[in-house]
């Protein structure tokens, strides 16, 4: 059994004040100057600790207000109101919603699992990963208490090809060499997002986090500058077309990635010449019929395949094909071919919440690659100003690498704990056992139809209420 893996998080404050969902509007005009003002009675002391952040011209009360509405409901002249903050609503887009972004900020700051009171406030279900629920064990299938550390739950995965069986010679020694495997202590690899106001410090921070976590940071080979030399064993260079020198300097590259193209064999050969000991992953965009390509790649000896969806978690050619379904059908095709264990399947694109890790794995991935969350951990508001050459409102490029590393470790630590919560509830003790376990999940499409299909008839003259 591997030694127990724990991610040590530490509170790492924002550099800027977070954008809040709503704001307080308090009028002064008409104030009666009551001896016992409702503002003095605030349970959270919001008005007492009030201060103006002069850099951002933001009032601290909005960040501290907990929305109990007591001041709103108590002021005799009704001078205090709450209002939805349009700036908050404008964060991100329809997929990277303000709530998702704000929760990632919280996790990066605290390293803690988001916990709240009252029941779930969200919609019944949704597209993609929101159309599945994970199982839990009750009475007859014991759960595992991973989160409080009473039972060990392993989140380690292997990258590469695992043998179907071992053969030994007469002396009891292994008959042939095993394929090289890389094991990482958690099923998450980080990779650089499509945009971001990055600096060498940012990249160094990510590399530090990757090393600290024992995983990899994937980034284009030409971004590996001297500042990253020391982190080579934790980097996963993406090899573009054309000759590149990647294997220079200290420490060997262990893992690299080649994008799929018609002549991928040549590209892989070239990559292998550069770095003979590295494992090679092929990045394949998710599209209709991708299963055939995956099978032929595995048949040609490729042992790691990275299935890449769009940043909204969809196929490149069909917006209705979600990563969730793509992983399921690729996994299923590999199982039917009898070659599933001969390869590692990584998934990426639109993975925005901790639950997406567990859900991707249940659908059939071995692990995931996470991109935008490691940028949002650095307070990114997904405003995309950097893509237009404008300045970053939270000056990500100026953040020191130690802060970057700490924020990312916090986020990944919170995600790992949430994975443990979900696995514990399912009674699964090893994340490798979770792969493809669709029996541990419930899917909206099946449940909704079987439950409600028969409830469609309405006789004439009836009223619906």
């Amino acid at each position, binding site marked *: 059994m591997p030694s127990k893996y724990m991610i040590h998080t530490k509170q790492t404050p924002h550099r800027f004040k977070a954008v809040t969902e709503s704001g307080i509007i308090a009028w002064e005009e008409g104030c009666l100057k009551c001896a016992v003002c409702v503002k003095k009675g605030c349970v959270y002391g919001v008005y007492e600790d009030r201060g103006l952040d002069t850099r951002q011209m933001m009032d601290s009360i909005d960040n501290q207000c907990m929305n109990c509405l007591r001041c709103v409901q108590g002021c005799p002249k009704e001078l205090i109101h709450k209002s939805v903050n349009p700036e908050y609503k404008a964060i991100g887009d329809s997929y990277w919603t303000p709530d998702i972004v704000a929760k990632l900020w919280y996790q990066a700051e605290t390293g803690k699992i988001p916990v709240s009171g009252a029941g779930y406030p969200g919609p019944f279900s949704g597209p993609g990963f929101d159309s599945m629920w994970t199982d839990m064990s009750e009475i*007859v299938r014991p759960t595992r208490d991973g989160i409080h550390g009473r039972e060990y739950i392993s989140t380690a995965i292997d990258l590469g090809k695992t043998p179907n069986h071992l053969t030994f010679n007469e002396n009891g020694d292994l008959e042939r060499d095993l394929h090289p495997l890389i094991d990482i202590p958690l099923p998450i690899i980080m990779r650089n997002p499509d945009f971001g106001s990055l600096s060498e410090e940012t990249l160094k921070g990510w590399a530090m986090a990757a090393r600290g976590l024992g995983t990899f940071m994937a980034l284009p080979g030409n971004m590996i500058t001297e500042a990253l030399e020391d982190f080579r064993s934790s980097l996963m260079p993406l090899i573009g077309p054309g000759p590149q020198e990647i294997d220079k300097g200290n420490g060997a590259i262990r893992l690299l990635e080649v994008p799929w193209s018609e002549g991928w064999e040549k590209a892989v050969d070239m990559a292998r010449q550069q770095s003979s000991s590295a494992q090679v992953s092929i990045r394949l965009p998710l599209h209709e019929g991708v299963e055939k390509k995956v099978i032929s790649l595995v048949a040609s000896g490729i042992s790691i395949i990275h299935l890449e969806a769009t940043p909204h978690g969809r196929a490149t050619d069909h917006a209705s094909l979600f990563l969730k379904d793509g992983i399921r059908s690729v996994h299923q095709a590999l199982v039917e071919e009898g070659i599933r264990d001969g390869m590692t399947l990584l998934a990426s694109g639109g993975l925005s919440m901790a639950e997406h890790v567990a859900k991707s794995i249940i659908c059939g991935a071995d692990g995931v690659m996470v991109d935008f969350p490691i940028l949002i951990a650095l307070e990114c508001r997904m405003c995309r100003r950097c893509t237009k050459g404008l300045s970053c409102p939270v000056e990500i490029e100026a953040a020191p690498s130690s802060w970057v590393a700490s924020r990312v470790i916090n986020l990944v630590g919170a995600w790992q704990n949430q994975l443990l919560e979900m696995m514990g509830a399912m009674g699964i003790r090893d994340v490798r056992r979770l792969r493809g376990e669709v029996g541990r999940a419930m899917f909206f499409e099946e449940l909704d139809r079987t439950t409600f299909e028969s409830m469609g008839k*309405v006789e004439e003259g009836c*009223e619906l209420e």
Partner: protein
Amino acid sequence: MSNDNGHKFPEVVRTTSRFRNPIGKYRLNRTSDCIACGKCVELCPYGVHVKRRGRVLVENQYLCVGPDCPEPCHAACPVGALSLKRNPDFEVLGDFRWTADLLASTWYMAEFGKVPPAGLEYKIGDSAGGFDKLRLVLKADKTAKEGVSEEPDEEVDLSVELNRRKDHAHKAGMKVPFYGGGMSYGSVSITTMLSRIKAAAMLGTFCCTGEGGYPDELKPYDAHVITQVATGLFGVREETIKRVKIVEFKYAQGAKPGLGGHLLGDKVTPGVARMREAVVGYPLFSPFPFHSVYSVEDHKKHVDWIKAINPRALVSVKVSTPTDVDMVAVGSYYAGAHIIHLDGSYGGTGAAPDIAKKNIAMPLEYALPKVHRFLTEEGVRDRITVIASGGIRTPHDVAKIIALGADGVCTGTADLVALECVRCHNCERGRGCARGIATTDPELMELIELEWGTQRIVNMFLAWRKELTRILRRLGMRSIRELVGRTDCLVHLDYMNK
């Protein structure tokens, strides 16, 4: 209002908000142009305007129904001094499940004991699935069209039998098809707890203590208390188990299925610590699962243990909704349970990881029909009571889940909303609920008076009762028991006429 067993339902007593400014959907602004002619006072059917000492004031703007008003004051004002707009505070309230409309209509019911007249959607939320996509299929309303006066409510029977095993245990039942779900002493204040239990006693039903002990203040209501045995065994004593008619085993909770409970250190006050036999200021973990139960046989030992201590107690088994929930239900029946209580994944909590609330276990609307069908096929459906909870917000939700196969429901969040919970989701922070509901802070607890809390909950449930009676009558039924499993009374909008 009395029936055969001499139970008399309480009367509605109007019980206004505890706060100076109740939150409504609309705002009416009156400018200084007002000539105090009193036209608005005359017109308004909802009592929004009042005339006092020669002046006319907008005093109850939270009662304004906005564009639904048959005679809008702002249009009739001779000097145009009135204007109507949406209340911006209202936009901040609510979420997909408990919309601002549902919150405000529950507050209305808690104040007036009837459903709101207009202006608010009080039947469904905005979750776009499950309850919110299901509709009751009602026959054309003859009484409304022909002006036939309504029969008295007593003609429609809403009572539910809880002991269907017909064994030597109490012949317990409830007069309304709902009882109060477990909320522990510590997670809510003693006033909240007592308000719920007193209201349950007045309505002829039950209320569960949750996992946190059985405070002595509850003793007068023993006949209406369900005491809970949960995985932490906090506050479980032989003496309290002997006192009650129903004992509930909590195997899991819908909001955090498969995860244990966690009471933060701040909430472990001297009173809570005494009740739970713990140390002041230290967080308390309720583990998951019962480490003494790993099979249905183990579970039977649990049930037998309760029956040995209190042979006449009904045993309820509260479970969450995993894929094999039907097997769990049937196993519970064979282990001797009287009640199987399914807590769906949208249930309430004092504190739970967001990831668990959203993702773990299935919604109640899927689990309940599955269990109902399985128990029916097993031939034991009529010997066990099925109770549903986890996302029951309105009387319409009650009718829908009963039509899907439940005998009755359990409520929690709705009770708290009646006490003016705004669902700020901060029950567990610092001193606890800033509105004095889910807190043990001595100062914040003072925000609620027992009599006020009791009457608010009573009013809300009387409104539910009235609404359920109306629905049953529209379905042509005389008893709520006729509705159990009648999925033909439901239509799901996504599958309608397909």
